[in-house]
C-alpha cells in the first residue's frame, strides 16, 4: 500500500474514530482496532502508531492487545474468508474430515491464504450453529450439515463466482 492510499484510508478511519469516540469515552482501543480492521481488512503497522498517538497508549501495549485477541490480524486476508468451526458438536460430527477436504481442495492449512489471494482459511472456536454441525462460514454465509462432497461443490461455486468477477 503506498502513502496516498494509507492517507485515504486514514480519513475513513478518522471518521470512524470520531464516531466511536463519541459513543465510548473510555476503553476505546478495541473498538478503534475493530474499526481499523474493518477499513483495511487487517491492522497495518502504520495504523498502530497512528492509534498510539491518538489514544496515548504505547504501541507495544497496543501490539499486546492485538495479539491477545484472535479476531485481529497483522497480515491481509484473501478475498474470501473461510472459517471452519471447531466447536464440540462439529468435532464429534466429523469436522476433522471437513478440514481435510478443505485443505485438499485449497492446498492450504489453517492460518494460510492461497497463492492467488482468493481464499484464506481460519478456524473458529464455535459459530453457535451446533445443530447444523459440521459447519463452515464463508464470509458472512454459514454452510451446515457438510460432507466432503458438499465442500467440493460449495468451493466450486465460489471459484466460479470469482472467475466471473475477474472477467467482468
Amino acid at each position, binding site marked *: 500500500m503506498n502513502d496516498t492510499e494509507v492517507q485515504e484510508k486514514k480519513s475513513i478511519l478518522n471518521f470512524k474514530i470520531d464516531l466511536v469516540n463519541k459513543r465510548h469515552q473510555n476503553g476505546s482501543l478495541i473498538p478503534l*482496532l475493530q474499526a481499523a480492521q474493518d477499513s483495511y481488512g487487517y491492522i497495518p503497522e502504520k495504523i498502530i502508531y497512528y492509534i498510539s498517538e491518538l489514544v496515548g497508549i504505547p504501541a507495544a501495549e497496543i501490539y499486546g492487545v492485538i495479539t491477545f485477541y484472535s479476531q485481529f490480524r497483522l497480515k491481509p486476508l484473501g478475498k474470501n474468508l473461510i472459517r471452519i468451526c471447531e466447536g464440540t458438536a462439529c468435532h464429534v460430527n466429523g469436522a476433522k*474430515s471437513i478440514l481435510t477436504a478443505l485443505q485438499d481442495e485449497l492446498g492450504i492449512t489453517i492460518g494460510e491464504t492461497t497463492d492467488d489471494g482468493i481464499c484464506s482459511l481460519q478456524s473458529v472456536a*464455535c459459530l453457535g450453529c*451446533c445443530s447444523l*454441525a459440521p459447519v463452515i462460514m464463508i464470509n458472512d454465509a454459514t454452510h451446515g450439515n457438510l460432507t466432503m462432497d458438499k465442500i467440493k461443490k460449495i468451493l466450486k461455486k465460489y471459484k466460479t463466482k470469482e472467475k466471473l468477477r475477474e472477467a467482468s
Partner: protein
Amino acid sequence: MKKIKVGLGTCGISAGGELVYNKLKEEIKIKNLGIEVKETGCMGMCYEEALVEVVDDNDSFLYSNVTVDKIGRIVNEHLINNKPVIEWIIKSNEISKEDAFLKNQNRIVLRNCGVIDPTSIDEYIEHDGYKAIEKVLKDFTQQEVIDLIIKSGLRGRGGAGFTTGMKWNFANQEKSEKKYIICNADEGDPGAFMDRSVLEGDPHSVLEGMMIAAYAIGSDEAYIYCRAEYPLAIKRLRTAIKQCESKGYLGKNIFGSNFNFTIKIKEGAGAFVCGEETALMASIEGKRGVPRLRPPFPANKGLWGKPTNINNVETFANVPWIINYGWEKYSSLGTEKSKGTKVFALAGKIKKSGLAEVPMGMTINEIVFDIGGGIKNDKKFKAVQMGGPSGGCIPASMGDLKIDYDEIVRTGAIMGSGGLIVLDETTCMVDLARYFLNFTQNESCGKCTFCRVGTKRMLEILERITIGKGKENDVDILQDLAYKISKNSLCGLGQSAPNPVLTTIKYFREEYEAHIHDKKCPSHSCSALIDYSIDEVNCKGCGLCIKVCSSNAITGSKKAVHYINQELCIKCGRCFDVCNLDAVIKN
C-alpha cells in the same frame, strides 16, 4: 386474515430461511395476495429448519424443512385455495408430529423466540413487554425487587450458578455514585447457543431484565459484551436499543420516574477467557482480557473501579417473567435448590438437535430420548458432555440423573451455560478429552504458570495416547497435573480446565488403558490406531473408493476386488464413508 412467519435466526438463515423468506415475499407480491410475511427468531427446532408458520384466525400451520421449491405449492394450495399442504406440516390444531419435542418443555426464557418479530418493539410490548419494568418503577423499592428475585431462587445461568438476587444485593449495598450493569453475552462455550438464540429472537427481554437489575442496584449505565462471532445478535440488539431510546424506555426519567439508564454494546474480539467476569471487564476497558484476583469482587470494585453487577443473557431474560408472573410461580418449578427452567442446547449425535427449555430436575434420559428423539442413526448412547471445556462427560449409565446445579457438580461435570452434547459409541473419550485440552490450552491467557504450561503438558500426553504412544504411568501423570492446575489457577478457566480429562478417566478409564496398553481405540475413532482394509466378499469393484481416495492408496480394476496400500493410506476414512456395500472395514 393470514400472516406468515419465517424463522430467521442464524440457524434458520443457514438452512436457507432467507431464500425462503424472499421467495415467499416475491410470490405474494406477484400474485397480489396482500399477506404479511414477517421474520421471527429461532423456534428451537433447529433440526426442522427452515420453518414457515402460516397463521390465520383459527389455527396456525407450521411447515418444516421448507425449501424454495416448496413455496409454489404452499402459495397455490394453502394461501390461495385454503388447502394446507398436510404432508409438510408438523404442527397445527389437528397435527402434532413434533409433540414430543414440545410438550415436555416449559418456555420462560424462550417465551417469545419464534413467536414475535424480534425487530419490532411493538410486538414485544403486545406480549407483556416492558410491563415488568414499569411495574417495578411504580410500585417497588430497590430492596423489594432484590428480595423478590432472591425468593424466586433464580441462579446465574452462565455456569457457576450463584444466586442472582444475592449478587444484586451486594452491588446495591455498595455506596457509589456510579455503578455499572454488564450483560455477559460472550457465549464462548463451544456447543452452547441459547444466548445467541435469545439475543436474535427476543432481544428486548434481555434489555428489560437489565433495566430491572439496574434499578435494583442503582445503576444508570450498562454494557452488553457480545462476541463478534454473533453478527446477527449484535444487529438485533442495536435495533432494539434504538427502538427503546426513541420510545423513552432508555434515557432519562424512564416511565416518568427518576430512573435514568443507557445501554451500550461492546463487541468481543475473540477470546474465550473474556467470559470470565474480571477478564471481561478488562476487555471492556480496552486491555488484554486477563483475569485478576478476587476479592475485590466486581460488586465492590468492577468496571473502572466502580461497583458492577454482571449477569448472563439467559439470567436477564428470566427476570421480566418473574416480575410479571410472580416469584411463587417461578420457584414452584425445578428442584429444591435449583429453581425455574434451564435452556439446553442439544447437539452432537442426537436426532433432534436444537434448543429445549425444561424445568430443572428433568433427567438426562428424558432430555436425550423423549425430547431429543434419541441417538442419530440409532447408534448406542455413550455419554453426554455438559459444561463445555470446563465441564465433563456423564456416562449413559447415569442417564436417570436429575439435572440441577448440585447434582451435576457431584458427577465432576458442571451445568455450565447448558450445552448438552450427546456422544455415541463412535466417539472416542480420550480424543474428546484431547479436543477440550487443545481448546483450553489455546485459550489460556498465560497469566498463571500452571494453566499456561500445565495444560500444554496435559495436551502433549493426551496427544501421544491418541496416536498409540502412551506410556504406562500417563494416567497418573494426567491426574497429578490436573490437581495442580485446578489448585493453582486464578480463574475458572484454569481451575476447571482438567475437568474433561478427570471425568473421562473416572468413567471411561478402560478406554485410556486400551489406547495405552493395547494400542487400540475401542471407538474406532483415533486414526493412528485404525487400519482400513477391503472385504473380498463384499467388494464388487465399483471404483467409488478409488475416486475419493486422495492419496492414491486404493488400486484394483473395474469389477475386481480392490486393495488398500497401507503405506500410502492416510486413514482419512473417505472410502469407508462412501462405500455402499460395507466392503471397507475399519479395524
